[in-house]
């Protein structure tokens, strides 16, 4: 009986050796999901009028530091948020980024997250990041992973300091809202 079994195994192995099933299957794109989040954040966030040159000027989404997310952002430029076009910009230095509305700070940005966030504080910018201490260091929105899903926490006090208004609907979807007034 054992011989029979071994023969079957052997035959199957040989017979199939020629076949080469390619294991493909695109891995789910977390960065694409982040891009969609950034677009959605924009819909629920209100910036002070001064942050726009005029009623026609675009909403600027910036990326600080190299990140694969940069590749996923161009499709956003085809969309509009409250009648404003979306513009995508890539920055290497914090000083350059002061004019944008949403700024994603890549984990690869190695010139110091804390000084960067300090430099950007009180400016009407929604900083977004992945680092575990992002909101603790003064960031506005931090991505977190909960149950294998991409979620976010919001630091409301920082948002207020930056003169940014966040809709209650967005707040209600956050895993946690830090610095909410009691």
């Amino acid at each position: 009986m054992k011989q029979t079994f071994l023969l079957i195994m052997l035959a199957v192995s040989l017979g199939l050796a020629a076949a080469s099933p390619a294991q493909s299957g695109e891995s789910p794109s977390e960065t694409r999901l982040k891009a969609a989040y950034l677009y959605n954040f924009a819909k629920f966030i209100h910036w002070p009028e001064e942050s726009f040159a005029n009623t026609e000027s675009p909403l600027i989404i910036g990326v600080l530091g190299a990140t694969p997310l940069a590749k996923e952002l161009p499709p956003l430029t085809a969309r509009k948020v409250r009648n404003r076009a979306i513009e995508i910009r890539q920055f290497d230095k914090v000083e350059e980024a002061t004019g944008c509305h949403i700024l994603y700070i890549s984990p690869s940005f190695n010139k110091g997250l804390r000084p960067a966030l300090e430099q950007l504080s009180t400016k009407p910018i929604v900083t977004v990041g992945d680092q575990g201490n992002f909101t603790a260091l003064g960031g506005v929105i931090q991505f977190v992973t909960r149950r294998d899903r991409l979620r976010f926490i919001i630091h409301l006090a920082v948002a207020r300091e930056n003169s940014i208004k966040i809709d209650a609907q967005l707040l209600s979807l956050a895993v946690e809202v830090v610095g909410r007034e009691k």
Partner: protein
Amino acid sequence: MSFSLPKLHTGGIVSLCLLTLLPHSLWATGEEMLDLDLSQLMEIQITSAGRKEQNLADVAAAVYVIDQETLHSSGVTSIPEALRMVPGLQVARMSSNKWAITSRGFNGIFSNKLLVQIDGRSVYTPSYSGVYWDSQNVVLEDIERIEVIRGPGATLWGANAVNGIINIITKQASDTQGGLVSAGAGNQEKIIGTLRYGSQLNKDTYGRFYLNRHDQDSYQLLAEGSDANDASELTGAGFRVDGDVGLQNNWTLQGDLYQGDGNQILAPVWIPDSPLPLTVNDSIENNGYNLLGRWQHNISETNTWSLQAYFDATDRKEQYLAQNFKTVDLDFQHRFQFLEQHDLIWGLGYRNVSDDFTNTYMIGIVPEQETSELFSGFIQDEISLFDDRVRFTLGTKIEHNDFTGVEIQPSARLLWSVNSAHKLWTSISRAVRTPSRIEDSGRIVLGPIPVPPYPKIKVYGNSEMESEELIAYEAGYRFSQGSNFSLDTTVFYNDYSKLLDYSYADMLNVYFINGMSGHSYGLELSGRWRPVSWISAELNYSFIELSMDPLSPAAGRFSISDIIAENSTPQHQISLRSSFDLSETVRLNVWARYVDKVKIAGQAAYSAGIEVDQHVALDVNIAWKVTETLELMLAGQNLLESNHLEFVNEYFVPPTEVGQSFYCKLTWEF
């Protein structure tokens, strides 16, 4: 998940099989994804590259894990069948609805040295210290993993985890979103049906429910080849809800309800004043429900506590006994790191079991109703030394039960990571099995002596019974080369004392006593190999030798417990499983098992002079993914022999042969 934190992490484990249940939106292009709103984005499951792999290589114990993919590929239709692949376990089907499952010897319907838990809920029956496998209803598709730890786990899990623990862990509700319907039928598997649906209840809460049904046909008797009348039906329903509260808390609430009907032939059945054995066609009615809640609070990455509570009710009626149990269990665990090198975990537990028996002439337990309490506490410290190259784990459990008082079960474990490829571990531990209600205060009619007026021999419980004790010495070696080859070897030496035996007060009255000591040693080997991406193979081998000494082999001693213990375990077992991805959508799974002969498969087999022959079993199935969401499986089990005997039930049930099974199953996810 680390070995040292079994219960806490059941709530935090992440599914290995994420991709199968993803919503379609995941496959959306960048453009399409932009059209989704926030709540839809929040439903999309991602696989994070940084997720910590379960590192079994770092566990100083003999651990084997059956993951969902393996479970699915094996083509099994129940948990006991899946356990056949685990090295060191002895799994034998006694009839269509009865199993003898043990770890490292002492098999039988009353295998009492193996603890089994489903999501942290013990399913070990305290009346006879064993598991009624026919009433354990779990949706196989919802199982995340089955962890099997051979050897004592008493330090963490408590009494009765003498020779092993089986932890059946189901997926979190967040990992079973969407619908699943599976329907199958075959000659032996009359109906396999499952409906499960999971959905996001609100932004932080996920839930699922299931309905299932499993009907099995009967086998045939060894003697006449006639119908063994052992068909069964099991219907179940249940739910699980998992939620998060902020960043630091998560909780689980789950419950199940089941109702089973099984048939059995009982022979011999004895009645008062008659020496003649009767044969009765009996039915087993079993039903039960349970509800479990768990709250976990993460103070930090290295500081976590959890509180778990469950209620479990089971009811089982058979001709010779009706049993009803209600269990309340509370469990608290806290794990934290201190001084960088210490990973400490401690916990407290309380269990309250109320039983209610309906005695018969055949079996009685006195008093018929009793409530027993169990208090327990444990502490374990895992100390990391030499840059984490060596880990020394020291721990003990202390518990108090109503039968034997205080039991102390310590263990010491040492793991040496020579390098990332080679690991060595060794351990010494003590474990006990506490007496069951039957052993404490039961009465069983064995049968008449062959002399007029044919009075009957009875076995009586003994309230002086103490716990069975084990000191176990284990050592293991693991080797892994990338993900393509791994080898896991364990050797053990078990030193038992105060094992259950029988003592004859006179010709007619027998008592349970702690009358036997003994030892066992063995080797368990598990090798995995993936020569090319589309072929995987696993070879498992187990060897065991048991040797028992009756403490007082006085004249007139009729007990044969020692020779049964020595001869009821197959000495050699081999399992060879392989999977072939024939194409992107078709997978062939082949599983061959060799089980050595069982010279004396229990008391009844000894009396009848039945020996269980060695056998080779072959299971083959082919799974075809017709579409992304629809799978068709054709399976054949026990293909080499039309019928074979695996074990003989010790009491009442005549020897039954396991037959061939062919079935076809469709699984649709939506």
